[in-house]
């Protein structure tokens, strides 16, 4: 196998093979061979291989996937479940839908292998409600996989195995919060999507109180490649501590927005200038949000040398999140951007925890009054204080996701906020 470097990287999640979404084309290109290989070894061996690969979750938290799987109890009489998280509602993130559309069988194959590894007999692929078109595409692919005996009752015939798993698509109905894993489980149970208090963790007490693992769509789609080519092969791709391919969605003021599959560790500036065609009108960059709207924004002068992996982005003062890179040129109104982002979290807060429910609304009111020309300079400290009092004080990470952009946008673009207030408000003073 050729060593994959940045320059000769061949995409494996979205390889651009025509009609790959059709099962016969997928099979012709080696599809479902990893599943055969996986079923010939033990679940423990698969978990070890995935641990060796260094695969980390692609849904935002970068948690080691093999380690997560190993939390599933081996000695239990309860049914076990796998949830595949395709809620994809983070502003700036539009990668999972590419897998649903262009490589659905890779996701299905990964789902079956993962189910075998953790001992699940039922897996749910949770897809956001607005993606109805992609729900239909996944359902079609699933029907074909059932028909060919890669999923469900016919597996023993096709694969000569006792193991079988059923996979169902669960369609959401419009709630960002359902991308949070415990809220997603409540949603599958047919409840309001309120996050649950942790512990207990899903591996102990998940769907219907049973052991459950939740992985992102992109994470699961890496699994067949790891089984086919080995964990050591996968570990050589990209950044040392955060290896593998990464689906990077680039949006905003670039010439060629879209999803680019590149090895982790690619330079953020290469993503923007080499792949996404640079900034429209050759303008300067004012701000880049590297991982979806929840992640701290970087100033244009902070992105040099920064790489798209968990460690490099943390050092730079942000995080990889869902790798949704949002690029803003020098003419962007940061007060407006932050107001819009804050409105999102206010709308999407489930309302369960006071700091998040009240804090997001309060922050939005303050930002709106700044936009109306009624801002005060001390409002900026007030906003940071509100953010600080949301973060860490809620059941789930939505509170943190709301707090980070507020705090970091104001801290990193403070000059612009102050100038905005001084220019527009009679109340500026102080």
């Amino acid at each position, binding site marked *: 196998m050729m060593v994959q470097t940045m320059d000769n990287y061949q995409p494996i999640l979205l390889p651009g093979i025509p009609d790959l979404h059709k099962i016969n084309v997928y099979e012709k290109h080696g599809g479902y061979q990893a599943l055969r290989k996986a079923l010939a070894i033990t679940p423990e061996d698969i978990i070890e291989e995935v641990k060796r690969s260094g695969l980390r979750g692609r849904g935002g938290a970068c948690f080691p996937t093999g380690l997560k799987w190993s939390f599933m109890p081996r000695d239990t009489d309860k049914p076990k479940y796998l949830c595949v998280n395709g809620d994809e509602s983070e502003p700036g993130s539009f990668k999972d839908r590419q897998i649903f559309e262009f490589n659905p069988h890779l996701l299905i194959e990964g789902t079956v292998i993962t189910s075998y590894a953790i001992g699940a007999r039922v897996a749910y692929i949770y897809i956001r*409600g607005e993606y109805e078109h992609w729900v239909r595409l996944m359902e079609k692919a699933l029907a074909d996989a059932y028909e060919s005996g890669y999923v469900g009752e016919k597996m023993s015939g096709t694969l000569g195995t006792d193991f079988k798993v059923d996979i169902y698509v669960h369609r959401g109905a419009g709630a960002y919060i359902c991308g949070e894993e415990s809220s997603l489980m409540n949603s599958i149970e047919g409840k309001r999507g309120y996050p649950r208090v942790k512990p207990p963790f899903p591996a102990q007490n998940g769907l219907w109180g049973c052991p459950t693992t939740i992985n992102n769509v992109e994470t699961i789609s890496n699994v067949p490649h790891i089984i086919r080519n080995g964990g050591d092969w996968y570990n050589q791709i990209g950044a040392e501590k955060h290896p593998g391919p990464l689906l990077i969605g680039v949006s905003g003021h670039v010439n060629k927005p879209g999803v680019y599959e590149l090895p982790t560790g690619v330079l953020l500036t290469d993503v923007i200038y080499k792949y996404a065609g640079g900034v429209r009108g050759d303008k300067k960059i004012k701000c880049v949000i590297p991982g979806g709207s929840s992640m701290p924004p970087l100033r244009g002068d902070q992105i040099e040398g920064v790489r798209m992996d968990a460690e490099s982005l943390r050092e730079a003062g942000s995080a990889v999140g869902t790798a949704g890179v949002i690029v803003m040129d020098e003419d962007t109104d940061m007060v407006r951007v932050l107001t819009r982002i804050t409105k999102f979290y206010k709308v999407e807060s489930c309302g369960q925890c006071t700091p998040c429910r009240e804090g997001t609304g309060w922050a939005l009111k303050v930002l709106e009054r700044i936009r109306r020309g009624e801002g005060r300079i001390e409002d900026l400290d007030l906003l940071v204080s509100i953010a600080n009092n949301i973060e860490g004080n809620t059941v789930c990470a939505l509170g943190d996701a709301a707090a980070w952009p507020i705090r970091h946008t104001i801290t990193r673009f403070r000059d612009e906020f102050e100038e905005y207030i001084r220019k527009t408000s009679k109340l500026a003073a102080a």
Partner: protein
Amino acid sequence: MFTEEEHRKVQEIRSHYPTAQAAVMSVLHLYQDKYGYISFEGMQYVAELLEIPVEHVLGVVTFYEMYHDHPIGKFHLQVCTNVSCLLRDSDTVLETISKRLGIAPGETTDDGTFTVTEVECLGSCGTAPMMSVNKEYKENLTPEKINEIIDALLAS
């Protein structure tokens, strides 16, 4: 109410889960696809079908953005104004639609044909600005394209 075929669909959905309650979201989608919105009578019907409390169905309908508990226009134009679309001028999209139809976001035309709403990110950031028309995504919008879309809807 549901036809025999729809009842079979409900049974199929029900078989995916160990509890009846878990089937409620899909059954509500089915109901709304048929009637356009979910009235309280609709919630009672779904509750009876699944043998779960109606309060529970009401809780789900009111939590999730996509369920409507009142009628909306025949064509629902949902314009994303979140950050990636904002950066690519979703203002013009809203303006074009409002001017053409004479309604502001959140309103329905008097003849009940169009409802326009401003919505959160729909996952089309690479093809911004965008809106969805009922279930279909319309991407890389320009004023010309928007007017063509509205013309086509009016002609349909």
